[in-house]
C-alpha cells in the first residue's frame, strides 16, 4: 500500500441516519419545518436585498385585498398536469393503452403556486416557473391583483449557509468520486475496473499521484443502475422479481471494495437502484452484505446524501436522485444546471417528498444546506460535468456531476485545495 497523505476526516452524516421509524406520520411536518427554518434563514437576506420598505406578509394577512405590495415567503408548489400520479396509474379507465412514463413532464402550462403555512396563491410575472421545483422555499417581492394572482417582480433564494475558509495550499490532496459501478453489467467493463484498481493502488506508474488520493466516494448504484422488472398484479406494493443475481453482484462488489479499501479509505453510498431502502436519506448498506470489506477500518458504508469534512473542505453529495428528479420535473436540461439549482435554493432535495421519495420527518428537514460545501456532487449522471460556482461573499463551490462508471468508465478527481476537478478515464477502448 502506497503511503497516503494524512487528512483529518469527519463524518457529518449523522443527521441522515434514522434511528427509529414512524410511518404513521405524514409529510406535512417536513414541509412545515423546511418553511419555518428557511423563513428564519431568508428573513435577514430579504432585508439585505430589498431593504425594510416592503413588509414581509403572511398570505392570510392579505385578506384577499388587491394592490398590496409586499414580500411573501413560502414553499413553491408546481401544479403539473403530467406529474406522475398513482391514482391515474391505477385508474381502470386508463388501463387501455397505458401511457409510457414521461421522461420529462414539465410543461409551459404548469401552474406555479406559493404556499405558506396556511394558504396558497398563484404566482405570475418574473418567476421563470419552468425552472422552479416543488418544495423550494423562496421569498417573492410583488403585488396582489384582483384575479387572485401575486405578480412577482423579484425572487430570492437562500443560496446555502456560510462557508468555512479553506486553509492555504500545502500539498495537493485528491478526492476520487465514482458512481454507477453497476456490478450486474460489470462483465462488459471488467478491464476498466481492473485499470481503476491499479490506478488507485498507484501501479500504473502513478504512485506519486496515488499517494495524494485521500479518499474514494462511490456515489450509488454500485449493484445495479436500472429498475427491476415487476410482476403485474393487483397488490399494494409490487413484489420484486427474483433477486438472485443481485445477491451475486453484491458478493463480487465485496471483493472489489475490499481490494480498493486496502489502497485508500472508501465510502460507499447507496443509490436509487441498489438493494437498500428507497426513501431519502438512504441508509448505509448493512455490514453483512460486505463481509470482507467490512473487516477493513478504511471501508465504510455511508448514507445518501452524504456529508463529510476532509481537513477544512466540506464535501456534500448524493447518488443523483435529487438531480434526476429535477430533470424530470422542470425544464432544466443538464444535470449540472440542476445541481447548481439545488445549491442556489439552499436545499439538497427540494422535490422530496413530492416526487422524490423521502422519510416523513417530523421534527426537522435534514436536507437544508446550512453550511455551504466546498465540493458538491451528484452521482450517476449521464456524463461528466463540472463548474466552480462562485456564490455571494466569495463562497466557492466545486460542482461535480459524477458520470456513471458503467457508461463512461471514468471517475472524477477533485483537488481539495484548489478545488480543481478533472476526469480520469479507464476505458480500454478509448484512444
Amino acid at each position: 500500500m502506497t503511503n497516503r497523505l494524512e487528512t483529518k476526516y469527519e463524518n457529518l452524516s449523522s443527521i441522515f441516519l434514522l434511528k427509529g421509524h414512524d410511518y404513521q406520520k405524514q409529510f406535512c411536518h417536513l414541509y412545515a419545518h423546511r418553511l419555518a427554518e428557511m423563513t428564519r434563514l431568508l428573513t435577514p437576506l430579504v432585508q439585505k436585498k430589498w431593504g425594510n420598505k416592503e413588509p414581509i406578509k403572511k398570505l392570510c394577512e392579505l385578506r384577499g385585498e388587491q394592490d398590496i405590495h409586499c414580500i411573501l415567503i413560502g414553499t413553491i408548489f408546481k401544479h403539473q398536469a403530467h406529474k406522475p400520479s398513482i391514482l391515474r396509474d391505477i385508474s381502470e379507465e386508463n388501463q387501455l393503452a397505458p401511457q409510457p412514463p414521461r421522461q420529462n413532464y414539465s410543461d409551459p402550462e404548469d401552474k406555479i403556486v406559493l404556499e405558506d403555512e396556511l394558504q396558497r396563491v398563484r404566482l405570475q410575472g418574473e418567476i421563470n416557473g419552468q425552472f422552479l421545483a416543488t418544495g423550494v422555499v423562496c421569498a417573492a417581492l410583488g403585488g396582489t391583483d384582483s384575479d387572485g394572482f401575486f405578480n412577482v417582480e423579484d425572487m430570492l433564494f437562500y443560496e446555502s449557509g456560510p462557508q468555512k475558509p479553506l486553509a492555504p495550499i500545502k500539498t495537493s490532496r485528491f478526492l476520487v468520486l465514482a458512481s454507477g459501478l453497476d456490478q450486474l453489467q460489470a462483465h462488459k467493463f471488467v478491464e476498466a475496473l481492473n485499470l481503476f484498481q491499479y490506478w488507485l493502488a498507484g501501479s500504473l506508474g502513478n504512485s506519486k499521484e496515488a499517494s495524494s488520493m485521500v479518499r474514494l466516494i462511490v456515489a450509488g448504484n454500485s449493484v445495479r443502475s436500472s429498475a427491476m422488472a415487476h410482476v403485474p398484479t393487483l397488490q399494494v406494493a409490487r413484489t420484486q422479481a427474483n433477486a438472485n443475481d443481485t445477491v451475486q453482484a453484491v458478493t463480487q462488489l465485496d471483493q472489489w471494495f475490499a481490494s480498493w479499501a486496502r489502497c485508500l479509505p472508501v465510502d460507499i453510498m447507496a443509490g436509487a437502484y441498489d438493494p437498500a431502502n428507497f426513501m431519502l436519506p438512504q441508509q448505509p448498506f448493512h455490514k453483512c452484505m460486505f463481509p470482507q470489506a467490512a473487516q477493513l477500518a478504511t471501508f465504510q458504508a455511508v448514507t445518501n446524501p452524504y456529508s463529510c469534512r476532509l481537513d477544512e473542505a466540506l464535501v456534500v453529495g448524493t447518488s443523483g436522485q435529487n438531480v434526476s428528479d429535477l430533470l424530470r420535473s422542470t425544464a432544466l436540461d443538464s444535470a449540472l444546471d440542476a445541481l447548481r439549482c439545488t445549491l442556489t435554493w439552499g436545499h439538497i432535495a427540494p422535490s422530496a417528498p413530492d416526487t422524490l421519495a423521502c422519510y416523513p420527518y417530523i421534527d426537522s428537514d435534514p436536507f437544508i444546506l446550512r453550511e455551504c460545501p466546498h465540493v458538491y456532487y451528484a452521482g450517476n449522471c449521464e456524463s461528466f460535468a463540472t463548474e466552480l460556482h462562485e456564490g455571494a461573499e466569495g463562497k466557492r463551490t466545486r460542482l461535480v456531476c459524477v458520470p456513471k462508471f458503467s457508461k463512461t468508465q471514468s471517475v472524477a478527481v477533485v483537488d481539495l485545495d484548489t478545488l480543481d476537478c478533472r476526469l480520469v478515464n479507464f476505458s480500454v477502448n478509448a484512444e
Partner: protein
Amino acid sequence: MDGKRKFNGTSNGHAKKPRNPDEDEEMGFEAELAAFENSEDMDQTLLMGDGPENQTTSERWSRPPPPELDPSKHNLEFQQLDVENYLGQPLPGMPGAQIGPVPVVRMFGVTMEGNSVCCHVHGFCPYFYIEAPRQFEEHHCEKLQKALDQKVIADIRNNKDNVQEAVLMVELVEKLNIHGYNGDKKQRYIKISVTLPRFVAAASRLLKKEVIMSEIDFQDCRAFENNIDFDIRFMVDTDVVGCNWIELPMGHWRIRNSHSKPLPESRCQIEVDVAFDRFISHEPEGEWSKVAPFRILSFDIECAGRKGIFPEAKMDPVIQIANMVIRQGEREPFIRNVFTLNQCAPIIGSQVLCHDKETQMLDKWSAFVREVDPDILTGYNINNFDFPYLINRAAHLKVKNFEYLGRIKNIRSVIKEQMLQSKQMGRRENQYVNFEGRVPFDLLFVLLRDYKLRSYTLNAVSYHFLQEQKEDVHHSIITDLQNGDEQTRRRLAMYCLKDAYLPLRLLEKLMAIVNYMEMARVTGVPLESLLTRGQQIKVLSQLLRKAKTKGFIMPSYTSQGSDEQYEGATVIEPKRGYYADPISTLDFASLYPSIMMAHNLCYTTLVLGGTREKLREQENLQDDQVERTPANNYFVKSEVRRGLLPEILESLLAARKRAKNDLKVETDPFKRKVLDGRQLALKISANSVYGFTGAQVGKLPCLEISGSVTAYGRTMIEMTKNEVESHYTQANGYENNAVVIYGDTDSVMVNFGVKTLERSMELGREAAELVSSKFVHPIKLEFEKVYYPYLLINKKRYAGLYFTRPDTYDKMDCKGIETVRRDNSPLVANLMNSCLQKLLIERDPDGAVAYVKQVIADLLCNRIDISHLVITKELAKTDYAAKQAHVELAAKMKKRDPGTAPKLGDRVPYVICAAAKNTPAYQKAEDPLYVLENSVPIDATYYLEQQLSKPLLRIFEPILGDNAESILLKGEHTRTRTVVTSKVGGLAGFMTKKTACLGCKSLMPKGYEQACLCPHCEPRMSELYQKEVGAKRELEETFSRLWTECQRCQESLHEEVICSNRDCPIFYMRQKVRMDLDNQEKRVMRFGLAEW
C-alpha cells in the same frame, strides 16, 4: 326595477358602489330621494304580501342595468327558459275571458344583453274536444255552453276564486281522429273552451257522468286531448319550443314598471304583457339557434351534524354555503363566494362573507340569490338535500323571507314530494322545490338519467369523468373544523367551494346544459321537464305539433294496464367461441325508426281491426294500398296517407344527419362535443318514438305499431342472415362459406372466413350494400366495424377489439361483461378488464391465464389490496326483512363508535371476512378499515367462488373449453394459502407470539431469541437481508407516492391530510401501506442497525 337599482343606473357606475349595504350614509341627496321612492314601493308591496325587494349590493353580483325600453318603438327579444301558468285577472284589451280568474302563461328568459325578462302571455284558453253526437247541430252549441257552464260551476267545491264563468265557448269543428285510418273525410267534433285548466277535466268528467242536455246524450262521446298539460297545450298551439327565442314586435306589448297597472310581480329586470297571438316564436335555426348568456348558480352547503346522526334541519346548523355563478359560454365563474357562520380567514380569488348568526347568514344568502338572479340552479343532489335542508332550516329558525327564492315576488319556494315513474330510471321518489322562473338543474339527476356508473357519489363521479379525486371530509370532522379557528373554517370553506365548483366543471365537461337545451328545442318541451319527467312527454309534444298542422286530434286514453304482450326483438342464437379471425358487423342504422318510415307505421295509417271491409266499400281502399305487417296488422301505404310518426322521424333523422356531417368536418374539440351531444339527443328522440307506441301506461299506446316494428325487425335479421349465408359461399367464388355467428336487435355478426382486416371490411361493406338493396327505403344495413379478435360468450355478452380502419383499433368493446356492476367488488371488474385486454389486444391467452392464476394466488395469500375487495351498498333502511350484510355491519359499527358509523343514506363499504363454517354471509361483512387495522383474515374462498369464478369461467370457457374450471380455479396456484392471524376475536387473546427465523420461519432455538436468523440460515444473512430490504423498498415507494398524491389532491403541503373519501381507490391502500411498512421495518431492524 326597484328604486335602488335605478339610482345605480343613473349614476352610471362612476363611483364604486358600496359593497356593504350598511355603508349607505355617504350616498347623498340623490340617494335619499331614491331611498324615499323605494320605501313607498315597499309599502305597496307589503300590502300585497310580497317577499322582500331585490337589493343591489354589488356591481359584481347584479345583472347589467336594462336598457330604456319603449314598447311602441322597440322590439323585445329574449330566450325563454321556463314556461308556466298561473291564475290571474284579465287585462283589459287582451283576448280571452274578461271575467277573472283566467289562466295567464308566464315565460321567463334572458336577453342577449343578459337582462332577465318575465313575459305574461294573456288570452290563451284551455280546451278539449269530444265526438259530436249525430244529432248535435250548430245551434246546440250555445245551449251546451250554458248548460255545461252551470254544471261545472255547480261542481266547484268551494268557490274561493269566485269563478263566475267556466265554459267559454262551444264550437262545432271538423277534425280527424289520429288513431286509425278512416279516409280523409273529417268528422265533426265539439271543441269546448273553458276558462281554467282544471275545468278541462271537470267538464269532460261531467259530460261522461251526467246528463247535460236532456235532448242529447254525451255519455258515450269519446273525449279528445283532455289530458294535455296546459303549458304543453300553449307551447304546441303557439309554436313555442323549449329554450327558443321569443320576439315581441313593437306596438304589441306593454311594459310594467312602478307606475303601471298592473304593477310588476316578478324580480326580473324587464316585465311585460303580451297577447298570446301577438308574439313571434322563432324556430331554433340559423341566427335563432344562438344561446343567451344566462346565469348558472352552483352551490353547496355544509352542516355541522352531531356525532353519529345524519344532519337534521331541526337540530343541526347550516355553517357554510359556497356559491359559484357562471355565464353560459364563459369558462370561469365570475362570482365565487362562500357564506360562513363565524369568522373565516380570507381566500384569495373568492369572497368570504362571514356571519355571526346563522339566521343572518341564511337571510343574506337568500338576498344574494335574489340579487344574482340566476336562471339555472345547480349543484350535486340539491333537489333532495341542499334545498329542502335550507328551507326547513330557515323555517325552523324563523328566518323571515328566506323562502322567496323564485322570481315571483309573492310566491314562496316550498318542498313537495314528487314521484317519477320512468322505464329509463325506474321508480324514484324525489323532493321538488319550486322556483318560478329559475330552472333547478341538479347534476345528480343528469347523471342518473344519462350515465350508468358504479357509484354516483360526487367523489366517484369526478374521478370517473375528470380523473380527479376529491378530498372528502368526514361529517364528524366538519363539526370539529367549524368549532376550531378562522383557519380551520377556511379549510372547510375551501372544501365547500370545491364542491360548488365541481358540478359546474362536470356540467361543462359533459356538455349537459347545451345538450339538454338542444333536446328541449328538438322535442319542444320546457327544459325543466327533461329532468323531472320521462320520455313520453317529448314524443307527445312532437306528435301534437305534427297533428295540429294536419288537422288531427288525439283521443285520450286511460291506461288499463293490460297484460297484452308483443314479442320482443329476437336474437340469432350465438355460436359461442373465441374468434381469432375478423368478424364483420353489419348494423341497421336506426332500425326501429327506419322500419316505421319504410312501412309507414303510424296511428294515422293504422287500419283498425274490422274496419278493412268498411274502408274498401266506403273509401275504395284497394288491397294493394294496404300493407300487412308480419305481426298481422294492416297499415295504409304512404301514397294513400303519409303517417305523422314517419314524418317526425324523418325530420329527426335528417337533423341528426346534418349534425353528424357537421361533426365530421368540425375540428374544434369543444364544438365537436356539442354536435355529438346533439346527434345523440336526436338519436334518443327518434328511438323513443317507438317506445311511446309501446308504453302500456302511456298517453296513447298502440301495440299494433310497436308489435309490427319488432316483427319487421325480426324478419329483417333473419333475412339478412339468409342473404349473407346464401350469397357468400365458396360456390359463388368466395374464400369461404360465410356464417352468421350472432345477431342482436339491430346488428348481425358475420364470419366471412377471411384472415385480414382489409378483406373482411371489403366484404362487410359489399354485403351491407347487397342486403340493403333488398329492403324498403330508408332501411339501410351499414357496415360499421370489424371485431378482431372476437369473444362471443352468450346472448348480449361479448367482447372484441373494435376496428373501423384496418390500421389501428378504436377501442375494446365489452357488452354484458362484469365491468360496471355495482354489487361486485372492483377485483372482478379489474381482473376481467385485464384478462380481456390480454386476450384481445395482446392476443395472449396464455398470458391471460397466467395473470388470472397470479391474481388468484395473490388473493389466497392475502396479497391483494383491500380496496379491490370492497363491496358497497347503500344503507337505505335498517329493517330489511331479510338480513343483509351491510345492515348488520352498520349495527356492529354503531356499537364500536357511533360517531363514525354509517348513517341512513350513507353507503356502507364492507369486505367479507373468514368466519367459522356455516356462518351466514351477512355476518361475515366487516369494515375494511377495521380489517386492516386488526389483520382480520379475508374470506378468500368467498371472493374466489362467489365473485370471480362465474365471470371468469364465462370468458375463459370459449377458449379453454370444459377444462377452464380445473385450469383456473383448481390448479397448483391455489394450493398455497396464507392465513393471517387476527388481532381480535376467537383465540387471539390466548396466543403468544414467539420469534421465528426470518429465513426458514422455524422457531428460534434457545440462545438465539434475539437474533434474526437461526444458525442454519445465518450463512445466508446477506441474501436474506437484501430480500427484506427489497420488500421495504417497494413499500417505501408506494408510501411516498400515496401520501404525496393526497397532499396534491387536498391542495396543501403544510396541512395534514384528513380526507376520508372511501370511494377513492387509494384510501385503504394508504392505511395498509403504513402498517405494512411498520411491520417490514421491524423485520429489517432485527438484522440490527447498519453501524460502521
